[in-house]
C-alpha cells in the first residue's frame, strides 16, 4: 500500500517534470522564431538611403538641392556611385529614375528600396535675335538664372534693365557680349533704353520634371 503510494508520487513528479521540459522547449522555440524575425541586415537600408541622399545633395549630380542634373546623372557610373556613397560598395544596387534604370550592379531582387520624389532638370538654350529700339521690352517665357546678350557693333543701346533694375549701362552704347544673372524666382523682363540695336538674347532656362528616384540595395 505505502509502496504503491510512493510510486504514484514519483509518477506525478515525472509528469510534472516532463511538462516543465516541454514548456522550456516551447519557450526556446518561440525565442528562436523571434530572433529569426529580428535578424535582418540594416546595412541594406542604410546604403540605399545614403545613395538616395547623396544623389540629391551632391554638387556633382544636382543643379541645386533635390534637383538632379539630367546630363550629370545619366553619365554616372557604378564607380562614381561608390565614390559618392561609400556604404554601397560591394553590394548589388539598382538606381531607377521615373521607371528607367539608370545604373545597375548585380541583380538586386529583394533588399531595401528607398524612394524619393525629385526634380530632374535639363539645361536648354533658347536663342532669339531681335532689333530693339528705345523703350523696347522683352519678356523671357521661362525663368532662368543666366542671360547672354550680344549687341551688334552699331549699337545705340545705353541701358539694359531687368525688371526695372539696371544691369548694363554704357553712355557710349553697349557693344559686344554680356552675361547677366537675373533672379530665378521671378519672370525676367528685359528693357532697353537709349537707342536702337540688333541684339541676340540667349537664355538658358532649366526644364525640370518631377520623377521618382528609386534606389534598391541588396546584399
Amino acid at each position, binding site marked *: 500500500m505505502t509502496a504503491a503510494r*510512493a510510486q504514484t508520487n*514519483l509518477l506525478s*513528479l515525472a509528469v510534472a*517534470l516532463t511538462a*516543465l*521540459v516541454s514548456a522550456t522547449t516551447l519557450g526556446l522555440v518561440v525565442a528562436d522564431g523571434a530572433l529569426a524575425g529580428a535578424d535582418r541586415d*540594416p*546595412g541594406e537600408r*542604410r546604403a540605399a538611403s545614403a545613395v538616395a541622399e547623396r544623389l540629391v*545633395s551632391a554638387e556633382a549630380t544636382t543643379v541645386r538641392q533635390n534637383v538632379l542634373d539630367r546630363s550629370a546623372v545619366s553619365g554616372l557610373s557604378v564607380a562614381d556611385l561608390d565614390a559618392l556613397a561609400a556604404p554601397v560598395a560591394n553590394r548589388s544596387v539598382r538606381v531607377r529614375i521615373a521607371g528607367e534604370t539608370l545604373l545597375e550592379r548585380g541583380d538586386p531582387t529583394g533588399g531595401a528600396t528607398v524612394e524619393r520624389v525629385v526634380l530632374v532638370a535639363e539645361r536648354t538654350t533658347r536663342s532669339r535675335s531681335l532689333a530693339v529700339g528705345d523703350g523696347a521690352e522683352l519678356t523671357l517665357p521661362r525663368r532662368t538664372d543666366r542671360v547672354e546678350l550680344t549687341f551688334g557693333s552699331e549699337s545705340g543701346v545705353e541701358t539694359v534693365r531687368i525688371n526695372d533694375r539696371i544691369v548694363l549701362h554704357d553712355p557710349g552704347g553697349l557693344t559686344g557680349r554680356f552675361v547677366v544673372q537675373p533672379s530665378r524666382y521671378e519672370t525676367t523682363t528685359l528693357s532697353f533704353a537709349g537707342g536702337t540695336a540688333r541684339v541676340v538674347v540667349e537664355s538658358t532656362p532649366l526644364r525640370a520634371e518631377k520623377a521618382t528616384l528609386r534606389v534598391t540595395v541588396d546584399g
Partner: protein
Amino acid sequence: MSRTPSLQGDERALTPAVGKALEIGLVVLFIGALTTALYGGAVPDYRDAVGAEVGDRAVIAAAERIENAVPPGATQVRSVHAVDLPRSIRGENYGLRVENRTLVLRHPSPAVGAETRLALPDRVEAVEGEWRSSDEAVVLVSGDTEGVRVELTGRKELGGER
C-alpha cells in the same frame, strides 16, 4: 492494553522517507540539467545573437546621425549634435571610433562587432574621434574656409557647450 510501538521494530516509516529523498534528488538533478542546458548553451547564444543585432543597428544609427550633422553647402559652421547610443550591448560597455572614414564598433565580446563606411561630402576634410558608451556622445562639426571637420566627442569634453 496494546503494546507500545517501537521505532526499532517498525520499518514502515522508512518508505516515505526514501520516496521523498528520491523525489528531491530527481528534482535537484532536473534543475541542474536544465540550468546547465540553458546557461551553458542557449542563453549565451541568444545574448551573442541579440548583441550582434543591436551592435549593427547602433553603428548604423550613429553613422546616420553623424552624416545628418554635416550641414548642406556650408563650411563656416560650428554645431554640436547629441547622439543616443545604447548604454551597453550584451551587458558590457563598448566603444565607437572612426578609422579611415569608417565607423567601427569595438566590444569585449568577439561576437559583437560592426562597421560601416560613412557617406560624407567631399568638403568634409577630416572625421575623427571616439565614443565610449558610458559617455554622453556628441558630434562636433566645425568648419573654416578649408573645409568641415567632424569630431566624435563627449559632452563633458566640450564643457557643456550646445
